[in-house]
């Protein structure tokens, strides 16, 4: 019964699900391994999708044909567009999910996918022959063969949980870790390093004093993540705000020695943007309070996620901390916060396609590549799924550029610059932020998704229709003159350029608005016109950028003989093997002088 699968995916989290669905959709005979069927698509940390830059990623994954957008639209219970007070390039959708529903929905999506088989088993070993992956072996010593393996194990590789000074092996609270797979990777020449992350305590909403909490309402109507779907999100609950105070900080300072972080128990590297509350107090003692978002976990539970106080103190101290906070004086903890350490793979060992450099046919996605966050994981998942199938089809991998998407920025960053702490996306990481907006992710990526067979004809047609309407309206705005009662006449487009005017306001100037224009399209047209000057400048920058990106570097180039390049740069270039001058110039430690010298060298060798 030795079936040979096309692709085996190990891990059913946010990366693994996207990878498995993308591969199966594209026709690959795919097998997905999960440790527990019930935990497919589980949100290990906060019950939310999106936020700054992450919302951009989620919309891009949706436009490319991924599942995260539809899953959150169906299971979200509180939708908000963040940063509305800033300009439109940094507006970001975010939604609270009903945690249980989210994972049920994700399980349903993967189970309904054709070509996709799902199996509960713990993968313990990679089968590798002559530097090429051949399949995997489970804890039952069964072998499964495949041409490609995608690893997406999240925090499960030698996961170790810390609460207070107690520690135990676990992949997530109450779940097994994967102890042997790490060894199998190391045996095959893959180096591992250790990262750390953490979660806050979860509270019982019946024990909170809501009169002392500030309510944060969802946006009405909600802005969805998925493009051109008919999903009607539920949008019914509020979040609540409170903050820590001097009493909280005193408790933490007094107990620092009892924390797993500062007692020397934890050696993994944590992220600076997601510090535990004990970290925050130690590093910024002058700050008087830290904000806490109280987020409902779902419609059928009283559980509340206390976003802002991740901690790995002992249960006793966690109680003291929580009850020192305004509105939480009588709060009961339903689940304790904890820190978790896990193995990951330093990313100089993977190609920009996400395939391992040393083991052919092995792709890595998600936290194993040192990233953190569901959206970051899902982004790598879909790309790994696409590039794995491309490899089966003997096609070259797709590489989304920094000028085209946050997904492109993410992957270029991790493989070019390396990851020395858990990597989270920020809009500040994107040079071409004015172009990489959440509202135009469809224009940037849907044609690609359709070509790859991940976007259905039906959705693609809707996209094309919207594009046609947009073009029609822009033409109309340029040609029609506004009705301005005897004053100097302007074209409609000039009127729309004024900051205080939105699309619907044009009616007052005699513009007829057809009813085939959706609200999101009106907003998109208005902002493209208002910010046209900036967008054009950004596009010119992108042109210049592409010039260096298309200057390819031969893959077999031997840098070590190039004496005019600094030794440090030569070492780094040899390790990363950049595919273009553009990528080479982003490697830390490679200077302008090195790049000039490299260009001169390439010219002298290749003319």
């Amino acid at each position, binding site marked *: 019964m030795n079936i040979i699968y096309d692709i085996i995916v190990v891990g059913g989290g946010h990366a693994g699900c996207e990878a498995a669905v993308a591969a199966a959709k594209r026709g690959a005979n795919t097998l997905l391994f999960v440790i527990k069927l019930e935990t497919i698509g589980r949100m290990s940390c906060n019950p939310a999708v999106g*936020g700054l830059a992450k919302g951009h990623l989620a919309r891009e994954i949706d436009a490319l044909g991924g599942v995260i957008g539809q899953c959150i639209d169906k299971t979200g219970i509180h939708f908000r567009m963040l940063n509305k007070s800033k300009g439109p390039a940094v507006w970001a959708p975010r939604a609270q999910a009903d945690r249980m529903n989210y994972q049920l929905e994700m399980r349903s999506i993967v189970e309904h996918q054709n070509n996709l088989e799902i199996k509960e088993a713990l993968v313990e070993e990679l089968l590798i022959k002559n530097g090429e992956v051949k399949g995997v072996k489970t804890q039952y010593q069964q072998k499964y063969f495949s041409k490609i393996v995608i690893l997406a194990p999240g925090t499960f590789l030698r996961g170790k949980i810390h609460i207070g000074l107690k520690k135990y092996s676990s992949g997530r609270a109450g779940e097994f870790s994967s102890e042997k797979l790490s060894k199998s990777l190391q045996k095959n020449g893959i180096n591992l390093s250790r990262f750390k992350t953490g979660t806050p305590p979860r509270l019982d909403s019946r024990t909170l004093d809501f009169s002392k909490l500030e309510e944060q309402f969802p946006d009405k109507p909600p802005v969805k993540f998925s493009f051109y779907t008919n999903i009607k999100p539920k949008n019914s609950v509020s979040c609540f705000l409170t903050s820590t105070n001097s009493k909280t900080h005193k408790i933490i300072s007094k107990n620092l020695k009892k924390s797993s972080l500062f007692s020397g128990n934890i050696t993994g590297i944590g992220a600076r943007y997601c510090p535990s509350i004990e970290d925050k107090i130690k590093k910024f003692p002058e700050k008087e309070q830290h904000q806490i978002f109280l987020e409902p976990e779902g419609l059928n539970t009283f559980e509340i996620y206390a976003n802002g106080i991740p901690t790995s103190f002992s249960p006793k101290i966690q109680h003291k901390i929580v009850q020192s906070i305004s509105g939480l004086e009588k709060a009961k903890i339903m689940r304790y916060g904890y820190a978790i350490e896990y193995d990951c793979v330093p990313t100089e060992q993977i190609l920009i396609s996400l395939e391992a450099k040393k083991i052919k046919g092995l792709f890595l996605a998600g936290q194993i590549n040192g990233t953190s966050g569901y959206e970051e994981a899902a982004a790598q998942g879909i790309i790994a799924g696409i590039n794995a199938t491309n490899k089966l089809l003997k096609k070259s991998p797709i590489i989304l550029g920094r000028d085209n998407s946050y997904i492109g920025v993410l992957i270029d960053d991790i493989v070019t610059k390396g990851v020395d702490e858990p990597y989270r996306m920020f809009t500040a990481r994107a*040079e071409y932020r004015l172009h990489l907006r959440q509202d135009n992710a469809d224009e940037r990526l849907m044609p690609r998704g359709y070509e790859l067979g991940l976007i259905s004809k039906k959705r693609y047609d809707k996209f094309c229709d919207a594009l046609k309407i947009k073009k029609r309206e822009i033409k109309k705005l340029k040609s029609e003159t506004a009705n301005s009662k005897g004053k100097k006449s302007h074209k409609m487009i000039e009127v729309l350029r004024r900051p205080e005017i939105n699309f619907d306001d044009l009616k007052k100037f005699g513009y007829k608005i057809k009813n085939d224009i959706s609200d999101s399209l009106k907003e998109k047209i208005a902002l493209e016109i208002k910010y046209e000057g900036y967008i054009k400048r950004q596009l010119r920058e992108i042109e210049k950028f592409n010039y260096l990106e298309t200057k390819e570097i031969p893959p077999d180039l031997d840098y070590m003989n190039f004496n005019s*390049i600094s030794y440090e740069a030569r070492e780094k270039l040899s390790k990363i093997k950049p595919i273009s001058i553009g990528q080479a110039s*982003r490697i830390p430690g490679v200077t302008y*002088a090195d790049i000039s010298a490299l260009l001169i060298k390439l010219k002298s060798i290749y003319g």
Partner: protein
Amino acid sequence: MNKHNSTIAAISTPAGIGGISIVRMSGSKSISILSKSLKCKTLPKNFRTNSIHHGKFVDSGKIIDDVMVSVFISPNSYTGEDIVEINCHGGNFVTHRILQILLKNGAQIAKPGEFTKRAFLNGKMDLTEAEAVIDLIHSKTKHSQEVAISQLEGKLYSSIKKILNKITTLRTEIELNIDFSEQGLEKINFKELLEKLRIIKKEIELLVNTGNEGIILNEGYRVVIAGESNAGKSSIFNKLVENERSIVTDIPGTTRDYIEEDISLQGYLIKVFDTAGLRKSNNKIENVGIEKSFSIINKAHLLLWVHDITANIKSSMKSQLNDKDFIEVFNKIDLVKNKTIYKNSSIAYVSALTGEGIDKLKAKIISKIDVNKYDISNGLISNSRQLAAATKGLKALKKAMKATQEKIGLEFIAFDLRTASKALEEIIGKITSDEIINSIFDKFCVGK
């Protein structure tokens, strides 16, 4: 395979007779080439780095000179390659003879700036330093050398670095506000931001202004002689440069193109241009010359507008010369008997024939060069590439101010500031988005 592996040599002390001259050679074959003509107690192949040796420079058994040789072995040298410097007795003959022998034995003649280029390529200096050295090599006068030396010391670097730090601080605050807006941080105060931008703008403006001066000092002050046909422009040119390069006749329209000559006045490098007379002509070739004249005039720092004092003064063409700084020059005063008419002190009265008034004209030219307006000790932008970058930075900063006034969105201000940063980084090296993000984490407590 590697072009830069050739060994190069050149005389590195100024031409002319001095006490000692130095011939420098750089490259992997320096030692072996030297060993062919140096008689010395220690064999050249055993020379250690940073050592000096006394010996006799010989060719085909004949002693050429008694020399001292300084040795710097790779990578401990200016260029990063093996360098030998032969200190010989000054005098064109001996120095050139030694260079010729090195070339005969396998070295190649170095192009101007090539030692520095190698130093740059081997990571021995950064781009501003390399440019300053090249400026130093090319600088022909005393003032130019001052600029080049202060730049080499990194004054320009540190002034730009200071400006960049200020921009980086603002960018950090803005990025923090964008990416962590949900964390109850203080909102950006647009009024304060505008004030900070205004200060930075002033600093860049100062740099750009010094840029114009720096270029005058380094690339020369461009004086263009223009005016009506046959007013004696070429004769004045010749008097100024004191040689007979221009072809002088009394037929109108003899100078059909332009002629350029470098002179040194009180330590300043002056580039003097002689142009074709500006008159309407049916002669096609001459018209090409007139067009060229206009393009030269456009790049001038100063125009000498020449009239024939004996002719009817027409200044019809002058209106086309924009708002260039100019000196009016009345030529051929030798033909005028009544000298009392020379009363207008803003006009230079000269006779190119006798040389009368030429020194006064030179003094007027010097008085027009106003380089002491700015404090050179803060470092000076001294070439066109740097000026273009600083100007680009200034433009972006002005856009950022406009965006701030209009409150159109922080990410647009961030975009303009990033453009400004990138422009200034072109002069001194780059700042990455990671540095901004790191600075956010170092300075602010953020994250959920």
